[in-house]
């Protein structure tokens, strides 16, 4: 694992003073973070802290209320629609549900980005699809429909589709959620080997502590709209922040409320 932090100039994505609200709820409040080239950066935090929202902000599907999301120095929010779609062709994203196109076969799903962005002849597309499916261990599943795949296979096909165009950046939204230990192991091995083989810049959004600590180079812990802690896995384990400690140990006691905020029960005096 590469724990050395490269210099700032090697950042692919730079998030500067980002603020984002949904209705009255503040999701991010003046957050800044950096995604470095060729590294696996993990964004961790309790459920509902807006981790997936961050991926959507990077993908330009949401626009920040304040601040900037810079891809190679260019602000994603101010890009024209055609520039934005061109920028997205450089990114791959693995959705939590896989999000395969249900009316297409596995083959057509993986071939979809190739057909959309290249003019390759069919025999080359077939070769690339076979290679990508091979890399996720699913060669031979070309003619299966998404409904015929198990949850783990579904996610692996989605991963093959996400890397079909050899993107510079790949974003994983909760890749381990709801997977059995074997699939989890397969996925984390895939994430690591893809990073090494393709020199991919990787962002993982997850709340699976053990699996993420084992593969990430750098981690941001996000809660209550702010970055509560950051560092390499080793640094985080020694982190002083009570948020980080509570999150890593999975304790109910700590600054993050287990209970949803509600009105207090009436006191005995009032009831009597």
């Amino acid at each position, binding site marked *: 694992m590469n724990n050395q932090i490269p210099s700032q100039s090697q950042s692919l994505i730079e998030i500067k003073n980002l603020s984002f609200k949904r209705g009255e709820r503040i999701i991010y409040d003046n957050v800044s973070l950096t995604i470095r080239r060729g590294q696996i950066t993990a964004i961790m935090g309790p459920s509902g802290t807006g981790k997936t929202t961050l991926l959507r902000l990077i993908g330009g599907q949401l626009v920040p209320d304040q601040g900037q999301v810079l891809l190679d120095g260019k602000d994603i929010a101010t890009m024209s*629609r055609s520039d934005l779609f061109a920028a*997205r062709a450089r990114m791959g994203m693995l959705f939590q549900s896989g999000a395969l196109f249900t009316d297409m076969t596995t083959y057509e799903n993986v071939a979809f980005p190739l057909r*959309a962005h290249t003019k390759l002849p069919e025999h080359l597309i077939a070769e690339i699809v076979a290679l990508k499916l091979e890399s996720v261990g699913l060669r031979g599943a070309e003619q299966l429909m998404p409904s015929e795949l198990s949850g783990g296979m579904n996610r692996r096909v989605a991963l093959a589709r996400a890397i079909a165009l050899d993107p510079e950046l790949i974003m994983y939204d909760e890749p381990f959620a709801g997977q059995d230990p074997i699939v989890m192991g397969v996925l984390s091995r895939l994430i690591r080997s893809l990073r090494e083989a393709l020199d991919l810049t990787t962002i993982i959004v997850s709340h699976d502590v053990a699996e993420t600590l084992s593969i990430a180079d750098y981690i941001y812990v996000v809660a209550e709209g702010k970055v509560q802690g950051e560092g390499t896995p080793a640094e985080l384990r020694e982190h002083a922040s009570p948020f980080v400690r509570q999150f890593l140990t999975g304790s109910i006691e700590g600054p993050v409320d287990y209970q949803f905020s509600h009105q207090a029960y009436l006191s005995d005096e009032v009831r009597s």
Partner: protein
Amino acid sequence: MNAIALLGRRVIERVRGIGVATVMLLQILFSMPTKLGISLFIYQMHRIGVMSLLIIGVSGLFIGLVLGLQGYSILVNVGSEAMLGTMVSLTLLRELAPVVAALLFAGRAGSALTAEIGLMKATEQLSSMEMIGVDPLKRIVSPRLWAGIVSLPMLTVIFAAIGILGGKMVGVDFLGVDEGSYWSGMQSSVQFGHDVVNGIIKSIVFALICTWIAVYQGYACEPTSEGIATSTTRTVVYSSLCVLGFDFVLTAVMFGGVQ
């Protein structure tokens, strides 16, 4: 005060929705067709148009049969059953074919479009398409909108033709109206430019309204099962109300003596 604030919020939401839907419509109508877009359009024509033929044909037949029966029973009292062809054809071409075909289209194809696009949104297929760098407006919404706009006028013509044959079946074949007067009455009273073309113009307007509402409701629906159900219902309700409302306005302009 809360009620006023709520009303204001609702109005803002509605106006915003209309704005978004209009931008979406303009983006689709004024984008250049591509080779892939044309093949997707033909596929959707099959799903939206050809697959609606059965319900349109059967409904057209029964409407024609009923018109033949009702028309005959009214006209025979004043000895004018020879006018049956005129009555059936003008009723169908000017009003019933465009309106009933549009209402059936909203129920059969519109609801399916909303549910399909809504489910794609709920299962993140639209988001993943966006992240692949393919615009779902062009890939998913545009072929469906164009297929609806083109197929409903065709279905309306088929509806009217089958209805006229249905009226003939009851009036001429069963009730004994003279076949020559059925067809010649129709020929002398129906003006192509006035009746047929205006009926087709109506159906083009209804096609645009129904398909636009259907694709927008799917595209903007809340990505939950309840959200899809609400949007599908809205598609049918809004489309039906808009078709009936616009029919009154168009009839007033086309046939109502408004010069």
